[in-house]
């Protein structure tokens, strides 16, 4: 009885954590290269919209997902242009992208509101795992493919960042761009690529919402998830493996607040994840004594050769 409740909570937490994980992984890569992108929410909502429009028109949700990823990339390119090339304030540029994205999705999506997607993404059932008694049917039968892919991508990203040359380059650009530059690394191009990668991931996160999780389009349907993903990148200490843990934790929290709905006013429970984010950030900063802690040294600072 109790195990069933725990398992179903985990199952729903997994689904809920999926968009958070994808978006947070993208932000981790961008921030590891030294660029903060506060535009996650904007990239997500634009991805959700184009994903929905393409999937609705073509009947293929996976084509929609490709469109969502491409839209996220295009939006991120805008941020890269201002924050990396023009060396504008990264915070303001990202914030502008979020405001702009929410507005533009309202303009473009006005004719698409309230219609359910005719061909939504379907659950996948993981072979073999689903046959495990008790656990299998609850955990491995009713999840979306993107949930499992998110976990795989997280592990892959951890490996790339920590154990490959590309990862080393990205990290160096974020820690010490001048040294990277002196070693012949094209700092700006690496940063642009990292930001665009973050856009692809945020676009996929948005696409997951409109193509699988809530297969429909609604104005502002991301509802602050992009901002929570940003906080998760910090909470996970810019580590993709820790991001999995963070995403599950946040997902479990959201899920628990829904299941307590009849005992508590729903508005107070909806408030909890946001308060929890603040608590999580506070705990993160308390761990500063820990050697493993550390934001990328050059995070938030534009780079120009010969300037400090």
């Amino acid at each position, binding site marked *: 009885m109790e195990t069933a409740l725990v398992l179903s909570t985990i199952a729903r937490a997994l689904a809920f954590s999926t968009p958070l994980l994808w978006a947070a992984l993208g932000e981790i890569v961008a921030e590891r290269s030294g660029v903060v992108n506060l535009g996650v929410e904007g990239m997500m909502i634009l991805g959700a919209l184009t994903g929905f429009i393409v999937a609705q028109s073509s009947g293929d949700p996976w084509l929609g997902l490709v469109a969502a990823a491409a839209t996220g990339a295009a939006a991120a390119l805008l941020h890269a242009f201002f924050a990396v090339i023009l060396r504008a304030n990264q915070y303001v540029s990202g*914030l*502008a992208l979020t405001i702009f994205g929410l507005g533009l*999705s309202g303009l473009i999506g*006005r004719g698409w509101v309230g219609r359910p997607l005719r061909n939504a993404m379907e659950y996948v059932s993981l072979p073999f795992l689903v046959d495990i008694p008790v656990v299998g049917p609850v955990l491995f039968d009713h999840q979306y493919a993107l949930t499992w892919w998110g976990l795989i991508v997280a592990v892959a990203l951890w490996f790339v960042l920590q154990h490959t040359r590309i990862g080393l380059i990205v990290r160096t650009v974020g820690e010490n761009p001048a040294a990277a530059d002196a070693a012949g690394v094209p700092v700006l191009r690496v940063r642009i690529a990292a930001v665009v990668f973050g856009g692809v991931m945020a676009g996929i996160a948005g696409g997951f919402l409109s193509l699988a999780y809530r297969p429909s389009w609604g104005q502002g349907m991301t509802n602050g998830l992009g901002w929570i993903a940003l906080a998760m990148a910090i909470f996970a200490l810019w580590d993709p493996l820790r991001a999995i843990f963070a995403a599950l934790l946040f997902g479990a929290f959201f899920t628990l607040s829904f299941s307590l709905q009849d005992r508590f006013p729903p*508005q107070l429970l909806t408030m909890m994840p*946001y308060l929890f984010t*603040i608590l999580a950030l506070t705990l993160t900063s308390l761990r500063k004594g820990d050697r493993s802690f550390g934001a990328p040294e050059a995070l938030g600072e534009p780079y120009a050769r010969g300037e400090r």
Partner: protein
Amino acid sequence: MIGRYKLERRGHVGPALVWGVSLAAVIVAMLLTGALFALFGVAPLAAFATLVDRTILDARGLSEVVRRAIPLMLAGVGLTLAFKARFWNIGAEGQLLIGAVAASGVALFSGLSGPLLAPAMFAAGFAAGALWGLGPALLKVRLGVNEIITTLMLNYVAIYLVRWLINGPWKGSSLSGFAYSDRFDPAAQLPTIGTTRLHWPTLTLAILAAILVAWLLARTRFGFEVRMMGESPEAARYAGVDFFRTTLALVLVSAGAAGLAGVGEVAGIHHRLVDPGSLSVGYGYTAIIVALLARKNPLGALVTALFLGWIAASGDVMQVALRLPSQITGVTQGLVLLCIIGSEPFLRYRLTRVPAAAGPTGLAPGGEAARGGETS
């Protein structure tokens, strides 16, 4: 060097240049908005004509522009102070809502009446907004927690707090489709000019707040410390600026001003606590643009608030007359913000022509000679 031109760092940047470049940025943003509207099926010229007709050329419309600008002025002026010190307060939205909650609490439950009630509401709103900003300020100066995320998360907390109040403990006794609190006593309702919704006491307060913050920044030791913290934190630390005290003080003023904006909305417009969606329409976020477009100048924020108030009022017109979702004002707002930061290199650098004979170092650096070529 590009051909016979080269980029040169500017020396002194005068206010005329700053305003010229800002104006150019706004015009570019408006043109881009028009292009996007055209691209997605809204005729921009016709829409623009309708907007001008119903906002600026119409007395009632014009009053709506100003009344939309009032909360933007208060919150925006507060943000100029925070941004000067590089405290990235993204939480004016929540601070505004909490100010509205406190004012409503006083109006509904304090038992006060008569001429004391409105001042008490403003005082409570200021205090509540300031307290809402205090948490992120303390976390930032004591533990180094990123204030962008914490102030933003508290916006969502404030939204759900208001929703809980109007659906639960403060739920109004008269029932209709929407949740809201009981209506305020007439003493808690601010006077307006004629039949408009211009609640002039709040407008006066906003102008006074701008003057006060400008005076603080220009003439007091506190203002000097705020500017130093923003321009050169290292030097500020060396000069013995108390970061803890100064940050706390500036956030209290900044967040308190946003709280006042919330008081104005409930006491001057709605006369009850209503849903956050109708209470604020994103004033707290728009105020960020107000402060940045004014280049963090509190008096300038009064002017830029009017501009963004016009965009907000335009959103209402578009919703009613053109049947467009009001969110699309975000297109213009986002583009304005991008164009402002995109225009900053024009303030830092200028393009000078290299005289063919004199060679690349012919002009004195930072001199006044080549000024004007790209102004406005």
